[in-house]
C-alpha cells in the first residue's frame, strides 16, 4: 500500500523524523517495502515573475529577464525562449539548482551578460500535460496565477512529498487504505487521529426512487449494496490536492467524478463506482449472476464472455459492470454525463477473486474486494464521496438512499482473561495496559472483575479470539519485551528417522569415493522421457502432470532421476570440467493411477553419473557395489536392456526377482541428445527395499591362527561365460576352505582362440583348525577344476 506522507498528514500530525515513523511502523507489523522521496529529483527551482524584459545587446535571439523570485533583489536571467512576456509567472531554476533530468544549473554569462539561472520548459521539468496544463507547449512553461513568487516548484507540482510503501499482511484488509494506515500510525506515534466526518447539503430535486430502482438478486455474493444519485453533474478536473493524492498512489486523475470514486477508495479502502444514469437501460440496476452467453465490454475496451458464476451489475437489458472488478464501457462517465448513480457495495471476496482470475484482470478495486471490505465502511465511503461532491460543487445530491442488505452486524463482544494472554506471551503485562492499548487501536475495551471485554468492529474480522487479542496487545506493547527462555523439559537428543540415517550412511560412503552430491528440481520436461527413448508402455512414462506448470520444461513430476543427472553431466561437460563423479538422493513419484486419484508414491532413489578419463563401466559398477555393500546386500548382476544405455555395457542388479538398480555406459545416441560430448556412465538405484534392511551390530570374528595357502587359477573359456558364474562355482566347490577369491586378469587376443577368453583368479584357502597341507589344497583345487570343466572352462596350459 503506497501512502503519501502529505496525505497521511490530513488525518494526523506527524512530528517525528521519517526514519522513526518507518521504524515504529515496522515494529508494529507494517513492513516498509519502499520509500520514494518525490522532492529529491528537483532542487532550488521556484516560481518567478518576469518584471522586465530587454533585448540582449549582442544577440538577436536572446532576451534579458529581471525576475521577482520572492527575494529583495530581482534575479537576472538570459533566455532564448520567445514565448515569455513581462508579467508572466514561470519556473526559474536558480543558481545551483537540480532539474529532474539530472541537470545542474549554475550561474554564468551569455554573450557577456550575467545569467543567474535558467527559465524552464515543461519538458525540462519532466512534466506531461496531465501533470500541469501547458506542460507540453513548446517554450517556457507559463504558470497559473495561484501562487506567490518564490514558491518552491515542488510544492506547486506536489513533489514535496514522500511515498511510503507499506506492506499490508493478508489479515489486515482494513489497511488497504490511507485511513487504515493512518489509524495504525496514530497508534504507533501515540497521536490523535482526525477522522473525516462527512457533512453535505442535499440539493437535488425529487427522491432517489424517481431516478433508479435497484434489486439484488444474488445476495449471497453481495451482502450489501448501497447507492445514491447525484444530478446536474458538472464534469471538470478535480482540484490539485486531490490529483496529487491520486497520483501519489500511482493512479491517473481523470475528472472530478471519477477522481472522487478513486480518492474515496484509496482513502477508505471501499471501492466505488459511478454509473452514467442516462445509459442505464430502464433506470434499473440488477445485481445478479451472469446469464449464459452474456458478454460485457469493460472500460478498457476489452470484451469478456461471462460465466454464470460471475456477478454483474446489470441494467434492464444487459450487464453494465463486472461487479467489483471493472465498470462497463457503456455506462462510463463522460464529458456530457449529467446524472450519476453512485455505488458502494460489499461483494463476497471469493466470488471477486474467481472472476478476476477468470477474466485475467486485477484492478485496485478487485484487489480490495478479494482481501475483503468492511460491510460498515460501505456507508461511510458513500457519505465521504457525497461530501466531496458537495465540497467540489460537482453536482446536486438527490435525497434518499438505496441500502440493500441482509442485516448489518453489531460489534462483537470478546471477553478474555488477561492472565491467559500473559501466559501465551510469557509476560506480566498489567490488564490496564492491555485495555489502554486496545482502546488506542479503536477496539473499545473495558475491564470488569479482572476480565477484559473488547468490542470488535466489523472491520477487524480477523480478530477471533484470545490469541488475536494477544497479538494486538503485543505488537503495540513491543516485541522487544520478549526475553528468550531456554527450552524446558527433559534433556534428550532428538531422534532421526531410519531413512535419514540410511541416507547419511550412503552419503558418507559415496563422498568417500570422490562422488559429489547434486540437487535438481523434482519436475522435468516430459520430452526428456522421449530423449531416453523409453517405449510408450514404460511405467516411467506415467508421470504426474502439474495443472499449472511454469513452463513445459518443468511440467511433470519425475519418475526417474536419470534425465536430471544427464542434464547436470551435460552442463559440466559443456563447461569443460574434465571429469565428474556425481550423485543425487531424491524421490521419484509413482502414481497409483492416472489421472491422479490419491497421493502418488514417493520413492527414494539414488542416481550416480560419471564421466572422465578414469571412468568406465567398472568404476561405475564399483560404486553400485559400494551402495549395496553399505546395506549388506549382494545382488546378482544380469544383463539389462535399457534403450538409453550401451547395449553391451549395461547391467541390472537383482535381488530376488526385483531389479534394484540399472546402470551402464550411456548410449552414444542418448549422449548426443543430451549434449554430452564424452563417454558418460549413469546408474539409478531404488532404495526403498535397501532402507528396510536393518543394520546389524558387527560381531568380532577371531583373526586366523593358521597360515593360508594361495593358489592361482588360469582358465580358458567361452567369452560369453560370465565371470560371476565362475566365481560362484568356485565358492561352491571350495566350500569352507575358501577365504577369498579374486579375479585378477581377463585377456582376449593373441594366443587365445577366437570366441574365447582367458580368465585368472587368485584363491586364498585357509582352515580355522590347522595348517593346510599341499594335499588339502590340491584336493580343493581339483574340485574347483571339475566345477570349471562343467562350465566349459579348462585350465590354461
Amino acid at each position, binding site marked *: 500500500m503506497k501512502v503519501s506522507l502529505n496525505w497521511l498528514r490530513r488525518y494526523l500530525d506527524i512530528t517525528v523524523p521519517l526514519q522513526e515513523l518507518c521504524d515504529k511502523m515496522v515494529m508494529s*507489523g507494517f513492513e516498509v517495502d519502499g520509500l520514494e522521496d518525490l522532492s529529491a529529483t528537483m532542487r532550488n527551482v521556484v516560481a518567478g515573475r518576469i518584471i522586465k524584459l530587454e533585448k540582449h545587446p549582442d544577440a538577436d535571439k536572446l532576451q534579458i529577464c529581471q525576475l521577482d523570485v520572492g527575494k529583495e533583489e530581482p534575479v537576472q536571467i538570459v533566455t532564448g525562449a520567445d514565448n515569455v512576456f513581462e508579467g508572466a509567472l514561470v519556473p526559474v531554476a536558480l543558481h545551483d539548482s537540480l532539474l529532474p533530468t539530472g541537470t545542474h544549473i549554475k550561474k554564468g554569462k551569455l554573450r557577456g551578460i550575467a545569467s543567474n539561472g535558467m527559465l524552464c520548459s515543461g519538458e525540462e521539468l519532466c512534466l506531461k500535460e496531465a501533470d500541469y496544463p501547458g506542460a507540453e507547449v513548446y517554450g517556457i512553461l507559463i504558470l497559473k496565477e495561484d501562487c506567490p513568487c518564490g514558491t518552491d516548484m515542488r510544492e506547486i507540482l506536489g513533489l514535496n512529498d514522500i511515498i511510503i510503501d507499506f506492506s499490508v499482511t493478508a489479515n489486515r484488509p482494513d489497511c488497504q487504505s490511507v485511513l487504515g494506515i493512518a489509524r495504525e500510525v496514530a497508534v504507533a506515534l501515540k497521536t490523535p487521529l482526525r477522522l473525516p466526518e462527512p457533512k453535505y447539503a442535499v440539493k437535488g430535486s425529487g427522491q432517489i426512487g424517481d431516478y433508479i430502482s435497484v434489486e439484488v438478486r444474488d445476495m449471497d455474493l453481495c451482502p450489501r449494496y448501497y447507492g445514491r444519485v447525484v444530478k446536474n453533474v458538472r464534469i471538470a478536473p478535480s482540484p490539485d490536492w486531490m490529483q496529487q493524492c491520486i497520483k501519489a498512489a500511482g493512479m491517473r486523475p481523470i475528472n472530478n467524478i471519477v477522481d472522487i470514486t478513486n480518492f474515496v477508495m484509496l482513502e477508505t479502502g471501499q471501492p466505488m463506482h459511478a454509473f452514467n444514469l442516462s445509459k442505464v437501460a430502464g433506470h434499473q440496476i440488477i445485481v445478479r449472476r451472469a446469464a449464459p452467453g452474456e458478454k460485457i465490454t469493460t472500460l478498457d475496451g476489452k470484451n469478456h464472455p461471462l460465466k454464470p458464476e460471475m456477478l454483474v451489475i446489470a441494467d434492464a437489458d444487459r450487464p453494465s459492470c463486472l461487479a467489483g472488478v471493472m465498470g462497463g464501457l457503456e455506462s462510463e462517465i463522460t464529458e456530457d454525463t449529467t446524472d450519476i448513480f453512485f455505488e458502494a457495495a460489499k461483494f463476497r471476496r471469493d466470488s471477486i477473486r474467481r472472476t478476476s482470475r477468470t477474466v485475467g484482470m486485477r484492478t485496485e478495486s478487485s484487489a480490495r474486494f478479494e482481501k475483503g471490505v468492511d460491510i460498515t465502511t460501505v456507508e461511510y465511503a458513500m457519505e465521504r464521496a457525497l461530501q466531496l461532491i458537495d465540497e467540489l460543487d460537482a453536482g446536486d445530491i438527490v435525497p434518499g438512499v438505496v441500502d440493500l442488505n441482509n442485516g448489518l452486524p453489531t460489534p462483537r463482544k470478546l471477553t478474555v482473561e488477561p492472565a491467559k494472554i500473559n501466559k501465551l506471551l510469557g509476560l506480566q503485562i498489567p490488564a490496564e495496559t492491555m485495555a489502554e492499548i486496545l482502546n488506542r487501536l479503536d477496539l473499545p475495551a473495558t475491564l470488569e472483575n479482572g476480565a477484559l471485554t473488547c468490542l470488535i468492529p466489523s472491520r477487524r474480522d480477523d480478530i477471533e479470539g484470545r490469541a488475536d487479542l494477544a497479538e494486538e496487545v503485543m505488537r503495540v506493547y513491543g516485541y522487544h519485551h520478549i526475553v528468550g527462555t531456554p527450552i524446558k523439559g527433559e534433556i534428550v537428543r532428538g531422534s532421526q528417522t531410519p531413512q535419514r540415517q540410511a541416507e547419511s550412511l550412503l552419503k558418507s560412503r559415496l563422498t568417500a569415493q570422490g562422488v559429489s552430491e547434486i540437487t535438481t528440481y523434482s519436475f522435468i520436461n516430459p520430452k526428456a522421457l522421449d530423449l531416453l527413448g523409453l517405449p510408450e508402455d514404460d511405467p516411467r512414462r506415467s508421470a504426474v502432470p502439474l*495443472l499449472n506448470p511454469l513452463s513445459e520444461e518443468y511440467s511433470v513430476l519425475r519418475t526417474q532421476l536419470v534425465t536430471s543427472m544427464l542434464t547436470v553431466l551435460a552442463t559440466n561437460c559443456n563447461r569443460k570440467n574434465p571429469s565428474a*563423479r556425481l550423485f543425487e538422493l531424491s524421490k521419484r513419484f509413482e502414481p497409483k493411477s492416472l489421472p491422479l486419484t490419491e497421493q502418488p508414491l514417493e520413492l527414494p532413489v539414488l542416481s550416480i553419473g560419471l564421466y572422465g578419463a578414469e571412468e568406465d563401466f567398472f568404476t561405475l559398477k564399483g560404486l553400485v557395489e559400494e551402495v549395496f555393500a553399505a546395506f549388506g546386500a549382494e545382488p546378482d548382476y544380469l544383463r539389462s536392456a535399457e534403450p538409453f544405455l550401451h547395449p553391451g555395457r549395461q547391467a541390472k542388479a537383482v535381488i530376488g526377482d526385483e531389479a534394484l538398480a540399472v546402470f551402464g555406459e550411456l548410449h552414444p545416441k542418448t549422449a548426443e541428445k543430451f549434449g554430452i560430448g564424452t563417454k558418460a556412465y549413469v546408474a539409478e538405484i531404488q532404495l526403498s527395499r535397501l532402507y528396510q534392511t536393518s543394520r546389524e551390530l558387527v560381531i568380532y570374528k577371531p583373526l586366523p591362527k593358521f597360515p593360508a595357502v594361495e593358489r592361482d587359477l588360469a582358465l580358458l573359456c567361452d567369452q560369453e561365460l560370465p565371470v560371476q558364474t565362475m566365481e560362484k562355482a568356485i565358492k561352491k566347490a571350495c566350500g569352507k576352505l575358501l577365504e577369498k577369491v579374486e579375479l585378477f586378469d581377463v585377456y582376449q587376443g593373441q594366443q587365445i582362440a577366437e570366441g574365447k577368453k582367458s580368465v585368472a583368479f587368485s584363491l586364498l584357502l585357509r582352515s580355522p583348525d590347522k595348517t593346510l597341507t599341499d594335499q588339502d589344497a590340491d584336493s580343493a583345487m581339483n574340485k574347483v577344476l571339475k566345477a570349471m570343466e562343467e562350465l566349459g572352462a579348462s585350465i590354461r596350459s
Partner: protein
Amino acid sequence: MKAALEAMRESVRQQLDSVSDLKNLEALRVKYLGKKGELTGILKQMGKLSPEERPLIGQLANEVRSQLDAWMGETEQKVKEQLQAARLQAETVDISMPGKKKPTGGLHPLNQTLEDFIDIFQSMGFDVVDGPEVETDYYNFQALNVPQDHPARDMQDTFFLNENLLLRSQTSAAQIRVMEHRKPPIRIICPGRVFRADEVDATHSPVFHQVEGLVVDKGISICDLKGVLEQFAREIYGPETKVRFRPSFFPFTEPSVEVDVSCPECGQKGCRVCKGTGWIEILGAGMVHPNVLSGCGIDPEVYSGFAFGIGLDRLTTTRHKISDIRLLFENDLRFLKQFQK
C-alpha cells in the same frame, strides 16, 4: 711383545679415526683380528716367552683384542650413522610440492547447512520427521487455518496436480500430520522440499527447501520460542548474535512474527547485506493458532505451542554469500567443489 701389542693397539686406534666406510673397517678387522691377522701373528710367538711372562702377555693380548673389538664396534656404529645421515640428506624432498591425495566428494551446500540445522535442533531434543511432498489441500491449507478462497492463499502461488492434490508450498503441512499422530509434548523439526510457482531468477526458485519446527506442550509461551531461536541463531551466526521479533502474519500462527538476526556481516553498523538496517530476516514463526491445535484434537485451553519455518536456500546463500540461487541447482562442479574443504 708387550711393546708390539701396545704399538698395534695404538696403530689401530689411529687408523680407526680415519675410517669412513664399512669396507675399510672390515679390512682393518681382517688385518688385525682375523684368523691370519696381526694379533694372531703376535700370539703365535707366545711360545717364545717365559712361563712368567705368558699369562701377563696373554691377559694383555685379550685386553687388546676386546678393546679393538669394542673400538671397531664403535667405529662401525659411527660409520653406519654417518652413512645413514648422508643417505637421509640425499633423500631430502621439496616439501613445498603438493601432497598426494585420493579425491573425495562432498555434500551439496544445501545439505551441509541442513546437517548443521539438524544437529542444532537434535541437541535441543527435536525429533526429525518427514512428510510427503505431494500433499492434499487439507494438510497444506485447510488444517493450517487457510480455508478455500482465503486471501492468504495468494501469499504463495501453489502448484496443483488436481483439485485436491498439490505440491506442498510449505513444510508446515507436516505439522498437522505430526499433531494428528502424536500427543504433546511434541518437539519436532521437519526439513523438506517445497514448491511455489515462482519464475526462476537470482533470488527465486520454484523448488526450494524449508525446515519446519514445532513445539507443543503445557505452558509454552512466545519467550520459549525466542529462547530456541536465539540458541539456533547463535550456533549459526556466532555467540554474539541478537534476535529480534517483528509482528507479521501467518494464518496458522497467532501471534505471528518475522524473526531477524543482528547482521553477522557488519555487527549492526549497517551494510549492503542488511541494507543498512543492521538486521537480516531469517525466518517466520509464531504461536500455533488455536484453530490449528483444536483441528488436530489438541485442546488449546490446555496446550500451547510454537512453530517456525526456516528457508534453507536463502540461509545457505546468505551464509556463503552465494549471489544467485540458481547456482544451487545448476550443480557445476567448480561450484560444488568450493564447499568440499
